[in-house]
């Protein structure tokens, strides 16, 4: 009996898409390996728990004073104690699945340290092979993938958006439970926060990313990227050359020293395809490259290549998509 625990994280009035994806994969694995699927939801996020009905065997809401508004200290203490109350069953694997997010990045390692558990971030797959439970994650910027076997013990693992499809059979009988978190005071105080132009969440979780490079010839043409992105309900990203030129925010940069994206569709317009850029988008499912130079390296990482002027091809494509 394996146990899969999904940390259900909300944003903007619903759970993140990754929550549903992780729950779906947990149901598939529990189906083939045998086991239980639980969802843990904390603080304000727990208010949405009805949406998890049928998606897990157990939905455990954690409430308490230190959880809303969010603080890393509060969440670490709450998750630590809730997971401690879900002891491992003998030698069966116990995997706690998180979606990659800024919260996950500050909470997961600390909970793992607290519990003495294994930790893995940036994972792209959790799968069964001959009865073994395996986890895959890129290393060295995607130059290779490491595959780990999950045996006895607890593993806290964070998965990139779009790692799994969300369409697994549901309809599980769901038991709702509530637990109280230990009272915790945050040792970090938020002094101020300001909204920026770029919402990185749109970029990392978007199903479609339309990215522009130096070949877009400056901000005057960036509306062409936005228009295609809008037509495809996607987000816009940029290469570092564009960000370094001060034409876009660092939060919108795709690549090694920017954001890693794994959308279903990635359109690279006027991007040469330097390895540092590729590292940020290589796990996209389908890649379209538009470049005037037929020998541009980006074509080596694309599924569809168009040798042509992005400033002409983008609007034509937008028009065609709008037509449906």
């Amino acid at each position: 009996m394996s146990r899969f625990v999904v940390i259900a994280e909300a944003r903007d009035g619903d759970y993140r898409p990754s929550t549903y994806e992780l729950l779906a994969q947990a149901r598939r694995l529990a189906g083939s390996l045998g086991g239980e699927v639980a969802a843990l939801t904390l603080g304000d996020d727990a208010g949405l728990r009805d949406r998890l009905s049928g998606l897990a065997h157990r939905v455990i809401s954690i409430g308490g004073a230190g959880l809303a508004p969010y603080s890393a200290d509060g969440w670490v203490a709450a998750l630590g104690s809730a997971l401690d109350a879900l002891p491992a069953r003998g030698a069966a694997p116990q995997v706690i699945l998180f979606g990659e997010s800024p919260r996950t990045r500050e909470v997961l390692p600390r909970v793992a340290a607290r519990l003495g558990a294994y930790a893995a971030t940036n994972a792209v797959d959790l799968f069964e092979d001959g009865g073994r439970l395996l986890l895959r994650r890129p290393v060295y910027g995607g130059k290779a993938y490491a595959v780990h076997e999950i045996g006895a013990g607890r593993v806290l693992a964070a998965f990139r958006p779009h790692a799994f499809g969300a369409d697994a059979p549901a309809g599980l009988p769901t038991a709702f439970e509530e637990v109280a978190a230990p009272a915790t005071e945050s040792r970090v105080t938020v002094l101020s926060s300001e909204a920026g132009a770029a919402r990185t969440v749109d970029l990392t979780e978007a199903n479609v990313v339309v990215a522009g490079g130096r070949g877009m010839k400056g901000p005057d043409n960036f509306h062409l990227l936005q228009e295609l992105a809008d037509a495809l309900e996607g987000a816009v990203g940029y290469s570092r050359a564009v960000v370094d030129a001060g034409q876009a925010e660092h939060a919108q940069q795709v690549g090694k020293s920017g954001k890693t994206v794994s959308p279903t569709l990635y359109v690279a317009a006027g991007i040469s395809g330097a390895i540092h850029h590729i590292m940020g988008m290589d796990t996209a499912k389908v890649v379209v490259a538009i470049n005037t130079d037929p020998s541009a390296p980006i074509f080596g990482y694309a599924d569809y290549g168009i040798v042509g002027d992005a400033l002409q091809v983008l609007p034509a494509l937008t028009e065609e998509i709008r037509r449906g």
Partner: protein
Amino acid sequence: MVVLAKEVPDLEAMVKVTADGGALEVEKRRGLNFFDEIAVEAALKLEQSAGASVLAVSAGAGTGIEALRRALAMGSDAALLVDDPALEHADSLTVARALAAAARREGFDLVLAGKQATDDEAGLVGPMVAELLGVPCVTNIIGLQVEGDIARVTRETEAGRETLSVALPAVLTVEKGLAEPRVPAVMGVMKAMKAQIPRVTLAELGAEAQPPLTLAGYATAPARPPAKMLEGEPATVAVELARLLKEEAKVL
């Protein structure tokens, strides 16, 4: 101040999966982790304003000296290497235990770490060290000021930017943009080359290793089939591409 300095293969180093998929062959060009260099720079800036000293600490099995020499060449006051065979392919928590024990033994007001290492890209060790030391942690900072025993930090969020205050001692992990690492002067490099860097073992620090997650093997990145190239007038290729995305790739 303690800076966690990891030695990693150069960003341009060749990485190959061995024929049996059991290991990685990584070209031996090593240096200080990209983000740790930023952390060293930030620590040196603080040293000037706050007058604290900077100790660089690295953990490895026969590695780490290169990283520490770079940190010294940049201007760090001292370096310490946790050198232990148990750190070969070690679990992140083991590394964090080693570094936390070293920081505790040496004393600290502030620990700076990189947001992640460019080899394992885990981003685990910094916050783990914070938890083991029982101090607060803020990740991915792009701004830092210290006034007395309070640090005021800035970071990018999903929606924009936030400023936080955190009581010291604390662990902070640094993001690109916090500081521009200096290029060490020749004098500094010479001094760093000659420096005697003390070493300690896990046992001497009272830190315990845990076996890492079982490695089943390595795989190369799945190669995409050669791109299908479309040619013609923009309007024509747009129609063809939209059709392929819909009917062949099934992503629309």
